[in-house]
């Protein structure tokens, strides 16, 4: 500060100097502005933009990981890598379709469950009479900040054949599966249980109809038992983050509105449906969108726990892309999978955004107005 003070000292000629500075100031800001933002642009450009361009190039080549992907020995193969994944009969397409199937079941299982769990936790923790709310909020949120690797190790132990989960189930006389090594599909199992079919000899109509390299029977397997265990783990881990978003939303709900509803004679359920839920709508949409984006990218758990097994039932596009490139040296194919996944996520989020567009904005404006009113109240109080 003292340097600043002394710099301000000389009083003479201040006016003309300020004039000059006014002009130089714009230039100086311009230089500083670019200077300040350059490191960020360089890193993002180098490790985000250029990589994408390079990978796009590689996805049209047969590069095997040796030498430069731009060397003359690398052949351009056109859209062949994409064709092998989408239109040609073969192992590549089969694996890719299996990974899409697995992840599809994973997403439609995890997203609703984690949203529901997060909302439930938020409502419980938000009860005003509750003692120790901070403690419980912390406990529920903690798994979200812990490394996925550490959590995976713990769940591998909990869900092992002789592990805590099965021990617990055996108290109720339930013979638990060997979770992470059980490839049976849930829908198949439910069908067995209901007597709809026998997984040992599946209905011929389903088994003999091939769609995109998989039989209908395989398409309708549901998530495998192994995948379900991963789903439980992920729901458990991520719900805390979304719970915080819901809590923020709930605390934003003006008490007056709820009281007015109460005066009108609405019961608890009606109040929840007609007041709380509409108020939380933007949050719910956000949580679902983030959930979909996040779940389609699932990778860590597969890398640490299952490597895509058992019987490829936990294979996901992200893991398939990684293993195609890094373990099978099919870099073109790996890059192509990554781009297809990118496009899939992009399309899904675009659809979601379009679908929720106007209503979303309206709800948000409403929330903002409510907030402003609340703020005004806070000032006058």
């Amino acid at each position, binding site marked *: 500060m003292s340097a600043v*003070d002394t710099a301000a000292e000389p009083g003479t000629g201040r006016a003309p100097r300020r004039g000059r500075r006014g002009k130089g100031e714009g230039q100086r800001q*311009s230089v500083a502005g670019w200077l300040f933002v350059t*490191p960020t642009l360089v890193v*993002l450009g180098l490790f985000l933009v250029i*990589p994408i361009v390079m990978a796009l190039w590689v996805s049209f080549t047969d590069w095997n990981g040796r030498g430069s992907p731009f060397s003359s020995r690398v052949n351009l193969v056109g859209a062949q890598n994409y064709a092998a994944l989408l239109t040609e009969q073969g192992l590549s397409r089969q694996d890719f379709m299996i990974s899409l199937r697995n992840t599809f079941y994973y997403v439609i299982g995890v997203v609703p469950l984690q949203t529901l769990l997060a909302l439930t936790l938020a409502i419980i923790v938000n009860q005003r009479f509750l003692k120790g709310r901070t403690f419980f909020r912390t406990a529920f949120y903690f798994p979200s900040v812990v*490394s996925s*690797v550490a959590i995976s*190790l713990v769940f591998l132990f909990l869900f092992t054949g002789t592990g805590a989960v099965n021990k617990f189930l055996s108290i109720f006389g339930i013979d638990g599966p060997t979770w992470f090594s059980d490839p049976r599909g849930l829908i198949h199992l439910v069908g067995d249980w209901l007597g709809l079919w026998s997984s040992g000899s599946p209905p011929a109509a389903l088994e003999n109809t091939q769609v995109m390299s998989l039989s209908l029977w395989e398409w309708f397997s549901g998530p495998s038992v192994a995948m379900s265990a991963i789903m439980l783990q992920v729901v458990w881990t*991520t719900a805390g983050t979304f719970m915080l978003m819901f809590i923020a*939303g709930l605390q934003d709900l003006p008490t007056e509105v709820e009281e007015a509803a109460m005066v009108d004679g609405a019961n608890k359920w009606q109040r929840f449906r007609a007041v709380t839920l509409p108020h939380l709508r933007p949050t719910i949409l956000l949580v679902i969108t983030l959930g979909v984006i996040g779940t389609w990218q699932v990778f860590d758990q597969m890398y640490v726990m299952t490597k895509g097994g058992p019987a490829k039932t936990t294979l996901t596009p992200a893991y398939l892309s990684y293993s195609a490139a890094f373990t099978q040296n099919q870099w073109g194919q790996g890059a192509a999978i990554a781009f297809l996944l990118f496009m899939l996520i992009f399309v899904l989020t675009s659809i979601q955004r379009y679908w929720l567009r106007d209503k979303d904005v309206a709800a948000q404006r409403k929330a903002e107005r409510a907030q402003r009113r609340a703020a005004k109240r806070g000032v006058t109080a």
Partner: protein
Amino acid sequence: MSQPASDARVTQADRARAAIETETLLVRPASGDGGSVVARSSPMKKVAVYAALLVFALIYIYPFVVQLSTSFKTNQDAVSNPLALIPDPITTAAFHRIAQTDFPLWFMNSVIVTVCVTLGRVFLDSLAGYSLARLKYRGRDAVFTAILAVMAVPGIVLLIPKFLVLNSLGMYNTYSALIVPLLVDAAGVFIMKQFFESIPASVEEAARIDGAGTFRIFWSIVLPMARPAVITLTILSFQGSWNELAHFIIATDKPALFTLTRGVGQLTSGGLGSGKQFPISMAAALLMTIPTALVFIAFQRYFTQGANAGAEKG
């Protein structure tokens, strides 16, 4: 990088949205205490809520307790009494075994990477955020739009691409490969920009008239005022780089450069000759969780703010 980290990633991309604005929500005292709503909570409801709470608390706390107790068990005890919370006999064998492996090296690597990434991120994100919030120059809006666009790219699809660049630059299998690509995150830039915009411009005006240079104004006047945002960003960066897995997988295959996530992740595939040695994997998981837990407990408030950066008020 994916799920729990997908949440890390997810939260990263979206945290950006409203960053600091929401922070008041969680620290704001509950307004209704003692109000009419409380009076209406029947005893039945209270019992139900507490019962539900108890169940969820068990589900959420028990795994960590099991982790703690199993790391002091013998393998046989761990396998035959997985639910028991008191080890019988109590042994620190798992920790001794870990000490003989590369675990200390992985820990050191994680510390080095995390410290560098966190310092770099806080500094560079703040600089860029300040530039975008306060300095006027042509092309600023374009830069901001570009950063926003970059944020939308799902991180997992960048695995192969990032390897390609690291490889071409000759950075593969070096510390810089672990650190440099993580030095900037678009979401952090966004958070800082949001916060700087909330600081009154008059403060800088005064300093500018006094002849202070732009960097000086940023460094000794504006940045100290942005302390809450800086702390939030520090914590997000710490958590992100300490837990990062996918980037470290593609940045190196040299065991000397393995970080905790990479090294410990191999325990499951019998990397330590551990196979089904559960006490060892639990102890390793415990040791890598402790730093996170300490930071989490110390800065709990900022963690919750970070998570809420993505909440509705974008």
